[in-house]
Every structure is written in C-alpha cells, then in structure tokens.
C-alpha cells in the first residue's frame, strides 16, 4: 500500500483543561478530495490548525507523506508540501494581486531570504505568479491593491496564494463562506481546476459544495470523527443523521446532486 498523503492518529488537543479535539484518526490518500463537515464548534478549524502547524497537538501523530509533522512550525510544514487557506481572508492587503502571488512562490523557487537577487530579474517567479493569476482568472486585476478587491475576488486570491507554492496537499478552510450561489459555483469550479492531481482537504458548510467536490467525507462532532465514507454512504449513515443535521442533510445532498 502506498503512503497516505495525510495521516492523523489519535490526535488530541487541550486548551487548558478543555479537550477540544478528542482523538481524531483520519487517513487521506494521495489525490483524494476529502471534506470535513460537522456542526459549529465541532473542531474542524482546530483540526486544520493542528495539521498546518498553527497549534501543536497535545498528543497523537500527524504524518504528511509518511513523515511526522506534529509540533513543527507552519513554515516548516509548508516547505514539506502542505499549504492551507483561511476561513477569514488572509492576504497581503497593501500589496498588489501580482505581488501577493509572487510572494507566495518565492520560497518554493528557492529564493529564500535573498537580498542579492533583483525581483524584476526573476523570470521564473514572474511566470509562475502570472500562471497562477491566469488560473484564478484575475489577470484584469493584476496591479490592483489586494485590500481593495471585492470579497469574492479576495477569496479567489486567497486560494491562489495557497496553491501558488506548488504544495501537493491543499487544505481549504470554508472556501465558499459568505458567497452567493453563483459565486460559490464559480469557486467550486476554481477549486476543482487548481487542485487537479493534488490532495485536497476542505472544511465546508455548504453541502452542495461538499457533495459536488468530495470523494470522501468525514463527519466531526465534538472533537471526534464519527464517520468517514463516500458521500453516498454518509448521506445514508444513521449516526450521522442523528448526531448532525438530521433530515436537512438529505435535502442539502439532493440539492448538491442536482446542482
């Protein structure tokens, strides 16, 4: 069996005396599109923070492509090939869209902390940034200040920054939150396009997005994974229905299947 892209076993996180994540075990294969769903406060974002290095887990094992990453700093994990987006837009507000993307590709192209290269002479950085710019369809906003973009544009840029470095495991935290139906349809297409051939893990509340994109779904309730399965099986899973959305899950799922 090949090595899993991401492997969590019995990951726990305590804040003070409160245990927020109570033993999450999850295996995500290479190239899989995996969705993490669950009610508010279930610990989805915290799980993301534990995987991406924002917080260190209290105990448990987190492996990226077979290598342990638990307790490493975010930039170390990023250099090993994992990149994430944020629920609240997290971009470089005073830089232009192009500069945002160029910043995001610099490390992966090996320029590190260089102060002896001229940015304008780095053709590979420029080309890669323009490539991502085209991928997220924002060529017309290339020189706009990122802080002045519309919300949907900022979300697209957020995804652009996340994938620009060429990481093969992508974590997206509620990529369509706050979007209108048409905007979120557009976002789903974008996500499908930019994560082709990569491993995707996403937290998402919008069930049509989840059922439209995911190969497998994990349901997180009170810091525990109560089920991991195909969308079809999750939809019919009795304990998921009881613990989570009840009948509304069905409605959302059908909506997703239609859309």
């Amino acid at each position: 069996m090949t090595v899993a892209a991401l492997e969590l076993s019995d990951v726990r996180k305590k804040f003070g005396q409160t245990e927020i994540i109570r033993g999450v075990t999850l295996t995500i294969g290479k190239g899989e599109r995996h969705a993490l769903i669950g009610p508010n406060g279930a610990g989805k974002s915290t799980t993301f923070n534990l995987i991406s290095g924002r917080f260190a887990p209290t105990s448990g094992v987190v492996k990226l492509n077979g290598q342990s990453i638990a307790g490493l700093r975010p930039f170390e994990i990023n250099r090993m090939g994992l990149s994430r987006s944020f629920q609240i837009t997290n971009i470089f507000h005073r830089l232009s869209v192009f500069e945002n993307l160029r910043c995001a590709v610099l490390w992966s192209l090996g320029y590190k902390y260089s102060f002896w290269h001229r940015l304008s002479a780095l053709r590979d950085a420029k080309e890669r940034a323009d490539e991502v710019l085209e991928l997220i369809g924002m060529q017309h906003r290339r020189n706009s200040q990122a802080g002045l973009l519309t919300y949907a544009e900022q979300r697209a840029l957020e995804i652009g920054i996340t994938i620009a470095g060429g990481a093969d495991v992508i974590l997206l935290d509620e990529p369509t939150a706050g979007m209108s139906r048409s905007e979120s349809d557009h976002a789903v297409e974008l996500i499908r396009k930019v994560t082709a051939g990569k491993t995707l893990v996403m937290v998402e509340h919008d069930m049509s997005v989840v059922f439209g994109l995911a190969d497998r779904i994990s349901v997180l309730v009170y810091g525990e994974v109560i089920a991991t399965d195909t969308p079809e099986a999750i939809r019919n899973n009795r304990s998921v229905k009881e613990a989570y959305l009840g009948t509304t899950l069905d409605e959302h799922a059908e909506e997703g299947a239609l859309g």
Partner: protein
Amino acid sequence: MESTTMQQSSAPVITGRTMRYRPLNLARWVIWSITALLMIVMPLIFTGGFAVTLMSQMGIMIIFALSYNMLLGQTGMLSFGHAVYSGLGAFIAVHVLNMVGAGKVWLPVSMLPLVGGLAGAFFGVLFGYVTTKKSGTTFAMITMGIGEMVFASSLMFPDFFGGEGGISTNRVVGESFLGLTFGPGRQVYYLIAIWCFVSMVAMYAWTQTPLGRIANAVRDNPERVEFIGYNTQRVRYLVLILSAFFAGIAGALSAINFEIVSAENVSAVRSGGVLLAAFIGGAGVFFGPVIGAIVFTLFAVALSDLTKAWLLYLGLFFVMMVMFVPGGIASLLLMQLPLVAKKQFGRMLPSYAQGAVAGVILLAAAILSVELIYKVQVDSANGTVMSLFGIAFDAGTLTPWIVAAVLWAIGCFAWRWAGSKVRAQLDAIQAETGGLA
C-alpha cells in the same frame, strides 16, 4: 486584445515574454539623476558655512531615517531604540579613527563609514537576536529596553564611551588623497553626499529583492507569511541587521562630521528623533523619510538657532501631522499625482493658494503665541521686551496678545473657508473626470 483598465494604464502593454517596465525605469533614472545632481550642485549655490553644515547633517539624517524605515515602513516594526545602532557604530568608528590617527591601523577616512556600518550590523546581530524574537508591541518594548540599557552602559564604561564628555577625534589624519584631507566642511559634505547617495540606492534596491518584498508581506500579514514557507522571525532578524548596517554608516558619518561622539548618540532622544523624521516624511513611501529627514534637520538645526522653543514647534508639528496627515508629507505629494496626470493640477492652485495664506496666518498666530508665552514664562528675567519678524514690542503690554488673538480668529476662519474651497474644487474635478484613482 483586452481593453486595459485604469489600474493598468501605468503599466506597459504586455508584449510577449520580454516584458519590461521601460517607462517606470526611465522615471527612476530621471529621479535618481536629479537627486544626484541636486546633491552635487546645492553646496555650489549655498556656499555659506552654515548651509554646508546643514546639508551635511541632512545627508546623515537621510541615511538614518531611511534605515529606520526599513523597519517601520517596510517591515512594520516600530523600534524605539534605533539610535543604539547608529550610536554604537559611531563609537566604534571614532575609536578606529583615533587608532588611524595614532598610526596603529591604516584606513582611509573615506572608508570609515563602512567600519561604522559593519559595527552597526554586528550590534544588530547581537541585540536583534533578542528583539526580533517578538513582533508588534512586545518588539517595541524590548527595543526601548535595549536602548535604555545601552544608554546606561555608556555612563558605566567611560573607557569606551568617554563618560559625560564623550570621545573626541580629529578627522584630518593620514596622507591626503588627491588633495582631500576632509578638513574643510565642504569636503566632508561631499563625503557624506556620496555615502548618502550610495546608501539610498542600496536601500531602494533592497526593497526590490525577495527579502524586501517578503518584509512587506510580514508588515501586512505576518501570520500568512508563515504559511507560505517563511519564518517571520528570521525575516525580521535579517531586516534588522541590514537596517543596523545603514544606521551604523550614518553614525560613522556623524562621528566624522562632528569629531565627537557622546552618550547622546545612543540616547532615546535620538531614537525618538528618527521616528519623528520617518513619520513626518511618510513611512509608507520609500522617499518619505528623505523628506522627513530634511524637515527634521531644518527644525533641529536651523530653527534651534532662531528660537529656544524649537522642540515645542517640532512637537506641535508632529502632533498636527499624526492627526491630520497620518501618511506624512509624502502622502500629500502623492495625492497630487492623479491631478497632475489628468492635467487638472492648475485648477487646484487658486484654492491651494488660499489655503497657504490661511496657513501662514495661523502659523504667525502660533509663533506669536508661543514666543509670547515663552518670554513671559521662561525668559522674563531678561525683561519683557522682544522682537519678532523685525518688529519690537513688549510682552508685558496687552497689544501683542490682542494681535495674537485676532490672528488666531482670522486664521481659523480663513482656514475653514479655504478648506471648503479645496474640497469643492476637488469634487468638481472628480465629477468632471469621472473620479480620480
């Protein structure tokens, strides 16, 4: 071909793979050439000894303020102890200069700023390791602590720091090179000007490197930088070391210029001064601190000759800037660019002129009030007779106070009136041109 939008009008048309920012580069060459030309020509126009001293100090302050802005404006690090690096650079430089004078080491005086820079960078490596572990407010507090620590040590180790009197030196050492002894003030000015120009170019070039751009990213959003592969702590540390290098150059130049270095060089007053200069000029723009340094030096050198209350004026000016023009003088200038680009600037001139008149009246009112109060409160032992703008009067009588009150009233009224004119004119232009970027 796609239609280009407003934002792209300043960028060139994309033509295949060999895209170049030609117009932008041309503008840069022109600006740098004019800067160099000004630095060369200025002392030929203003030949007086005072003017040359003033310009020398401006040159030093420009390097210092720009180095400070590598932290504040470029990386978002508010430091209260930047004088530590310029000051310690100056102390090392002055000791090396004395060793050169004693014949113990060989070094041309013109290369002394490099020694100061390396010394500054060395202390950057040392102290920066501690300060840059944290960011934001914590960083600011630690820099303040380090600043106080170094200042306190300067009085504890008189061998190195020279105690109260400081360390004095003589810059005319070694054989003259092409007739340059650095004895005359103008030779020192040109030495400072060359180092100032080279430092400016180098610091500008730095903003166009990967580290320079990531520093901007750290300023905007340090958390996100960690998730694109960069250690923000390392970024802050490296920027601080580079910034300390340029601060050290400024310190060594001041050692050459004044031929004395004392505890004042590492004091919180110096650290505060460079913060004021960078902020007044505009920390958000590269050339902002250059303007700030020039204005600050005018206050500190020229104004201090005219009035004892110069610090009060500087403080008032700083408060006014923070409250009304938080982007600094540079932001005021940049606001005019779209007007100039649309050839509408001429239409603004009448209302700007009215604003200027109102400003002058207010300024006169402020100066008269400050000087009157200063005379009565601080300087009354020498009598209450004083003169201002060549007019002699007695601060003990009521008349000058009434004049001040009237000036205030007229000034405030005129300022509000001019302000509404400026706004109305701007609105009119915007309505006609469909908005300015």
